[in-house]
């Protein structure tokens, strides 16, 4: 469903993502993780067609994004960390506008169902300025899901959500995966990824450090099967010597450099 091969993105001399290849099949949820400046946002932006890759190919639903961006984007829904809404359009008018962009003929039935599902049906006539952050996020979801996307990308989806909103968002992701969509989820919240993702891709300095199912990655980097994704992440990215500590055991003594992040690369996150 999502096929990325040898994706490279350079900003002048600086390479933000280098030779990245991976695939996400229908029903899979891929967690994209990595420290700041690892290239996660750049990767997501290339996948959505917001920025062109320097090299490499991206296929969404079997369609080459560079060759036929319009057809490829019809498969796609992207949810940025901040809901970006039109302040003069009501909730329902956002759906009308989106329907025209994606040519969704039966949008009315789908739109009503989505609003019901997301529990914002009673807000249909309201403007974004009257909505809470969580409601705005739900509206963004409704707009994104209106055309039944097969490829769904989330960038820090839980930012600013309350507990109910977080639960709703996780349920939505699981439901989309069950319905056969391919999801990519970029987040620093490793616990979220552990809960929702079937696969994980760890990036560091624009390079793929590890990729595969959660179990595969865990087996590769952790010393025991109970290791958390956090342990795996630190082990893989080598930012911390902290490795899986068995319950009740003493944590290892940290060297002087522990916790000190390496110097950040030039800004790679446009």
């Amino acid at each position, binding site marked *: 469903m999502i096929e990325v091969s040898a994706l490279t*993105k350079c*900003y002048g001399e600086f390479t933000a993502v280098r030779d990245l290849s991976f695939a996400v099949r229908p029903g899979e949820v891929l967690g994209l993780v990595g420290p700041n400046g690892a290239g996660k946002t*750049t990767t997501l*932006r290339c996948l*959505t*067609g*917001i*920025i*062109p890759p320097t090299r490499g190919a991206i296929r969404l639903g079997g369609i080459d994004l560079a060759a036929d*961006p*319009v*057809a*490829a*984007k*019809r498969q*796609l829904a*992207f949810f*940025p960390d901040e809901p*970006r809404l*039109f*302040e*003069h*359009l*009501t909730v329902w*008018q956002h759906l*009308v*506008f989106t*329907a*025209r*962009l*994606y*040519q*969704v*003929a*039966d*949008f009315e039935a789908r739109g009503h169902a989505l609003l019901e599902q997301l529990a914002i049906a009673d807000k249909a*006539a*309201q*403007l974004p*300025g009257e909505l809470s952050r969580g409601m705005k996020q739900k509206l963004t979801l409704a707009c994104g899901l209106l055309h039944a996307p097969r490829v769904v990308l989330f960038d820090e989806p839980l930012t600013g959500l309350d507990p109910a909103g977080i639960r709703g968002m996780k349920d939505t992701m699981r439901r989309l995966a069950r319905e056969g969509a391919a999801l990519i989820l970029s987040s620093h919240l490793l616990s979220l990824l552990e809960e929702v993702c079937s696969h994980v891709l760890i990036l560091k300095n624009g390079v793929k450090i590890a990729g595969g199912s959660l179990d595969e990655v865990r087996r590769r980097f952790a010393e025991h099967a109970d290791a958390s994704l956090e342990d795996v992440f630190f082990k893989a990215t080598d930012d911390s010597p902290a490795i899986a500590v068995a319950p009740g055991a003493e944590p290892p003594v940290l060297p002087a450099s522990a916790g000190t992040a390496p110097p950040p690369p030039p*800004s790679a*996150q*446009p």
Partner: protein
Amino acid sequence: MIGALVYLQLTSLRNALSQRLRRLRHPRYLAGAIVGAAYFYVFFFRHFFSGRGRPTLHLAGLPALTVDWPSLLEPLGASVLFVVAALAWILPKDRAALQFTEAEVAFLFPAPVARRTLVHFKLIKSQLAILITSLFLALFSNRWSFLGGNAAIHAAGWWLIFSLINLHLLGASFARERLFDFGLDPARRRLIAFGVLALLGAATWLGLRHTLAPPTDADFAGPEAMLRYGQAVFAAPPLAWVLWPFRLAVRPFLATDASAFLWALGPALLLLVGHYLWVVRSDVAFEEASLALSQKRAERVAAIRGGQWRGPARPTKPRREPFALAPRGPAPVAFLWKGLIAAGPLYYPRSWLIAAGVCIAGTLWLRRDPRPFVPVIGALSLGIGAYALLLGPMLFRRGLNLMLTRLDVVKTYPLRGWQIVLGEMFTPIALLTAFEWLLLALATFGVQTIFRKIAAIPYLPGAGAVGIGLLVPPLGGLMFAIPFAATLYFPAWMGAGNKLGGGIEAMGQRLIFFAGYVLVLVTALIPAALVSIAPIAILLKLTDSLPLAVLAAGATASAVLVGEFALVIWWLGRRYEEFDLSVELPR
């Protein structure tokens, strides 16, 4: 403590200046600064350096009058100050608040700084803006030949006036807060203020009845007679007494020489010191309201810098849709639909039809008894229409800045570049076209009274109007394409508009763009004009009908312009698709 605050102010100023100078290394700022400086030199400074003395900018009709200008301008200026002072007691309903930045609030409010020191800091800070404004206005006022004095006197005069206004507004806000604490809410305060004003008005009217004869026809015989009667009104008590302190404030500005200035300076300075003491001795809690104000201001500044400032308030009520948007059909229409909703009810087709109907009916009614203002309406409509064709695209820049901030969302839409470009331009073109057509209708009726020969040929005025009207949409589109092209090819230039913060560079950049608009307008019209010669010649020969020829010429020229516009849209669409956000707009 005040030393630290002065340090903060001076250091901030120095750093801001050095930052502005450093950025002149970038061509976009340097070009803007050069053009802006040239403009200032030509229009203001040339006269200082040429040694030819004071420039003469005469207002129409004024030099011929033998009126004692200072004695008329002084009470006029005093009246303006009186109104400003009165409004300071009537209009505001907010709590007393000094405007601080969020950083100032964060550093100064928790610091061991006395409230009075904060007031002093605010006064020092406001002095910088007052000084710059005074110097700038002195450049203008020095060109008014009916004023005496010189640039230095004007600068000092302006400074006194603005300093007094600043202190009075501050003192009044503190006093209002005190009155509020004593239980006098804004409604009752306004009632009292209106009562006082009504008493003053009644006393003035009674006073005038006793001291001055009612105006006769002779007093309206001409501008000079009217001005003399005005002078007599201002000189009559009690109006003269009410305005007396305000006259003291404007007198230094109107001084004709150094000696008169020095005589006027003493009383004005006394007023200033009195106001200062009033302000610094008012011990009013302004912190809470200032905090709220600073947050509001910070949000506004962030919105402006992000290109998202859409006015003082967010929409509170949903707006009616201009038409039903079907889920299938050309995608750019969705942008038009969205844009018209954002434009608001004033731009609904029905509103425009009503406006056009009223204007045309009004003009027709006026034409029954031709008066001088019918041709004036026509000429004005033409002038405003031509100006709007240039000004509209310049105002569109703000919308493009907004588009840049949303580009990462828009780029995910499954649309071709040309569809998005056309969609983004649809609304401004539609609004400009409606506005231009309305003006064209007015101009058609007005111009007929000027150009009688045109009006005498049946159908010619109407054919001319339709012909020109056909040019408007594609021509407007081409004009809007200029800022769009600039945004896509020079995003840093366009984005820079939000960060310039005004100044000579920003003004220079606007002048450069203005020159660009004029150039494109002329370049676009030349092929259209050349191509439209043929149908005029052919139709005149075949039918001998000038209206038909004019109509055909308009249609042909419009078709050429549509072709040019289509090419431009295609070209911009290609550029849009290639536009790499991460390279062009690095954050």
